[in-house]
């Protein structure tokens, strides 16, 4: 099979990829940056740097997924348009969905987990820094494997849910589905490891005095999310593995013949898939809780209720998966149970919304960028949640299922919830990550365009669903009355696209012109990360703080005033730090090689990758890695450079 593509759009993408790669290689060589890249980034086990790498990947993937979305919206702007053919359209909606959930939302979350959690709980790193690097590189190479599919052999085209029998060899013989299965499998290992890593970090590494009920709400939300990751992702791993076996070695788990049962895949997929949406939304709730409290200059309202609702949601998220296929003909009893369970999730979610509102009530609200995104989230999510309850009503779902009403609903909760949450978090913690603030004005333009664009794009889609338009149609007839609303929706998508570009422009502009954050606490924050200088030194805390209550940093400021940040020079002790390692990168690269081999059923290549993985595991097992001690002299140098001594 020739790998060189014949389609002009694919050829153009391939040429672009090759040119960009040459450009990157040339730049790195010209400026002699290879060593820097290897030492500072590729081999790093520093949670903050790993977080930044996740963030960069998430923004790149947001761009790719967004371009996919715009291509679809162009195709749907007019009836019977010939812009994309059926095959292309099917590939693009598949990659759009998969990328946005697994390669955009997940790394965006993990960026926030990594950057914030250790700082918030007063820790010097995560529990397993080396494993953290393994997680990132597995994600990275999984994403890379998924993204090259478009230019090498063909992208997956069976929808992001990838249901058999459509995704079995009979109906999808090409490499696309194998790309999907293997790239998700590889990045999924990383996700499970991240879940374990942060669960342990939060349970075991909190600063003295920080009892669970004094923990910042974002860390609580990460804890809830990690619990869901640990229990949900193995179901996806199993589903993908069994389907891979069907396709690669000819087993019959999900085929129609020889006793296979495709319905089992659907169940396994959604046993992961529904908890997955809570995996991505819970940390967004956490971000909003931090932001609303800081920018209302008030304690978070109903802390205990907030914790209880997070945990209730994470447990209930396992009891609702069948609502993704009420139409599969389960008995009325089964559908009733899952309908009621799904609606019940609205109760703790509603409680959270009221608690956020009453955090603002009798507070003092500053409309900075993180808060703007928080405020826009509330009506968007309230409406998205409302249509969610409507969808949970099984008899109504028979009408909404797979229609544009559903599409509008889940974009409203995923964009309005997760994307707004991650953007709020990005703006909020940006100064902490990079040491400068993002300029407000461009950000406000971006905010308004993105929000208006959102409503213009998705409100018409609710209407289209009620008019009978189903998802995944690459074209539609003109006589249905769908034309106008589809055009409006396309315009909205482009407005959102401009909003995204303005965010990028804002970041680039601010690198030169953004205000330096010399205080470490630009928002008058309440939690421990704001007690540190920005950007944070690699050991985080010179001295692990003593926590005396919720909003620990706020209390320290109240108690000590300006003295709160200073460290007595004499009290500095040596700090134990983990060593960098190139093995996580190399092992993940071996995973990539093995995955690529399996995609094309080149078992020799797959074996080479497999041996590589084995060697890396073996080397790591034999390694004596005690870490190293950072001397007080070195610490003093770094601290005084930050003006902290």
């Amino acid at each position, binding site marked *: 099979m020739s790998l060189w593509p014949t389609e002009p759009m694919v050829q153009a993408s391939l040429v672009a990829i090759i040119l960009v790669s040459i450009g990157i290689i040339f730049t790195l060589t010209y400026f002699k940056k290879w060593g820097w890249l290897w030492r500072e980034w590729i081999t790093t086990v520093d949670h903050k740097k790993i977080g930044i790498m996740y963030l960069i990947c998430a923004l790149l993937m947001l761009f790719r997924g967004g371009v996919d979305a715009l291509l679809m919206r162009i195709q749907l702007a007019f009836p019977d348009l010939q812009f994309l053919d059926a095959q292309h359209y*099917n590939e693009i909606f598949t990659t759009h969905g998969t990328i946005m959930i697994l390669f955009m939302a997940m790394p965006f979350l993990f960026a926030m987990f990594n950057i914030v959690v250790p700082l918030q709980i007063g820790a010097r790193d995560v529990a397993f820094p080396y494993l953290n690097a393994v997680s990132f590189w597995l994600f990275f190479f999984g994403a890379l494997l998924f993204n090259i599919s478009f230019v090498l052999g063909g992208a997956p085209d069976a*929808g992001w849910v990838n*249901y058999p*029998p*459509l995704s079995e060899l009979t109906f*999808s013989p090409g490499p696309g589905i194998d790309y999907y299965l293997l790239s998700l499998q590889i990045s999924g290992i990383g996700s499970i490891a991240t879940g374990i890593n942060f669960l342990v970090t939060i349970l075991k590494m909190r600063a003295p005095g920080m009892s669970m009920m004094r923990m910042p709400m974002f860390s609580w939300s990460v804890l809830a999310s990690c619990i869901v990751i640990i229990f949900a992702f193995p179901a996806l791993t199993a589903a993908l593995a069994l389907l891979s076996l069907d396709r690669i070695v000819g087993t019959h788990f999900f085929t*129609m*013949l020889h*006793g296979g049962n495709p319905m089992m895949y659907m169940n396994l997929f959604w046993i992961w898939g529904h908890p997955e949406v809570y995996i991505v939304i819970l940390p967004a709730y956490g971000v909003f809780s931090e932001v609303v409290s800081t920018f*209302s200059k*008030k*304690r978070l*309202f*109903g*802390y205990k209720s907030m914790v209880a609702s997070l945990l209730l949601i994470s447990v209930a998220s396992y009891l609702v998966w069948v609502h993704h296929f009420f*139409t*599969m*003909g389960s008995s*009325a009893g089964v*559908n*009733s149970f899952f*309908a*009621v369970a799904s609606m019940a999730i*609205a*109760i703790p979610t*509603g*409680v959270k919304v*009221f*608690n956020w*509102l009453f955090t603002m*009530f*009798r*507070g*003092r*609200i*500053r*409309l900075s960028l993180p808060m703007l995104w928080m*405020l826009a989230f509330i*009506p968007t999510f309230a*409406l998205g949640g*409302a249509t969610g309850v409507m969808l949970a*009503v*099984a*008899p109504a*779902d*028979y*009408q*909404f*299922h797979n*229609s544009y009403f559903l599409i509008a609903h889940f974009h409203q909760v995923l964009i309005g919830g997760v994307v707004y949450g991650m953007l709020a978090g990005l703006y909020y913690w940006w100064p902490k990550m990079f040491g400068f603030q993002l300029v407000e004005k461009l950000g406000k333009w971006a905010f308004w365009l993105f929000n208006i664009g959102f409503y213009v794009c998705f409100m018409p889609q609710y*209407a289209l669903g*009620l*008019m009978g338009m189903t*998802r*995944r*149609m*690459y074209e539609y007839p003109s006589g249905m009355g769908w034309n*106008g*609303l589809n055009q*409006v929706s396309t315009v909205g998508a482009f407005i959102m696209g401009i909003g995204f570009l303005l965010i990028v422009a804002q970041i680039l502009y601010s690198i030169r012109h953004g205000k330096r954050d010399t205080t470490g606490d630009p928002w008058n924050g309440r939690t421990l990360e704001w007690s540190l200088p920005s950007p944070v030194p690699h050991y985080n805390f010179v001295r692990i703080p003593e926590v005396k209550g919720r909003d620990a940093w706020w209390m320290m400021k109240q108690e000590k005033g300006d003295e709160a940040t200073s460290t007595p020079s004499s009290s500095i002790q040596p700090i134990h730090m983990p060593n960098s390692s190139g093995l996580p990168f190399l092992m993940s690269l071996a995973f990539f090689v093995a995955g690529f081999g399996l995609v094309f059923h080149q078992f020799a290549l797959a074996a080479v990758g497999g041996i590589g993985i084995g060697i890396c595991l073996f080397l790591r097992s034999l390694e004596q890695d005690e870490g190293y001690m950072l001397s007080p002299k070195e610490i003093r140098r770094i601290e005084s450079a930050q003006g902290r001594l």
Partner: protein
Amino acid sequence: MNEQGVERDETKMRRSSLGKMLLLAVPFLLTGCRDRFLVLDPAGPVAETEYNMIVLSAVLISIVVIPVIGLLIYIVRKYRDRPGNDAPYQPEWADSKRLEIVWWGIPIVIIAVLSVFTVRDTFALTQPPSDQEPVTIQVTSLDWKWMFQYPESGVATVNYAKIPAGVPVQFVLTSDAPMNSFWVPQLGGQTYTMPGMAMRMWLQADQPGTYYGHGANFTGKEFAKMEFDVIAEKPSEFKEWTKQVKESKPKMTKEDYKQLKEPGVVEEKTFSSYPSDLFKEIVMKNGGIYRKEEHQHILND
């Protein structure tokens, strides 16, 4: 539809100034002709039941959503951090048992009410919508077309189905291709067509008319072309149509079916007969053989 009624509703809703929630409804209302909104224009008892649940759920959730949006606007206007803002400021006030009980309690009550109706109708929809003698139609989704068989008269059609109006129709669904979903919005919600399975779904059209139908679950390349019409006629006309088909249309041979199964898009077709036990064979060969007992009662009806 009653145009005036719609307009009156519209002005009434505007006047009640329920804020953003209703602004969002404007695109729905401006389109004018309500019959384009197939889901909101039920033409039979099944779609009617589902429509009522849609309306009930929308009303119940707006009890929470509208106050939330109202409160948000009020709070943000009142408590801005501006010099001279004399609204109360209580930075340490973060707890209120009474308020917490209110906003745990109200959603619980709303969800409980909605649950009762949901469960009632979920069970109701598994039963025939009326007592009249039903008609059975066997539906097979293919790549990328629909085949309808009438076991009572032995005729078959492709990409359209005729049904008698005012009579419950029992659709028995399967697939000889990837899983699809059978959806005729004005008559009622959908059920998946699955290879190796025979699923039952009840629909009924109250009045003669042509109702739009489409596959609702993606099945590959030309999925977008899986449109079909369901045409309801007076029972007498339906009988007449069956008779005419029997007399004038070609038979479907095994060879014809083999061609039909080939991936592709075809026009509407009509056949006076089909190979005996074709539907059962389709179900069995796709894996139904392993689930014989579950399906026996549907297949033998």
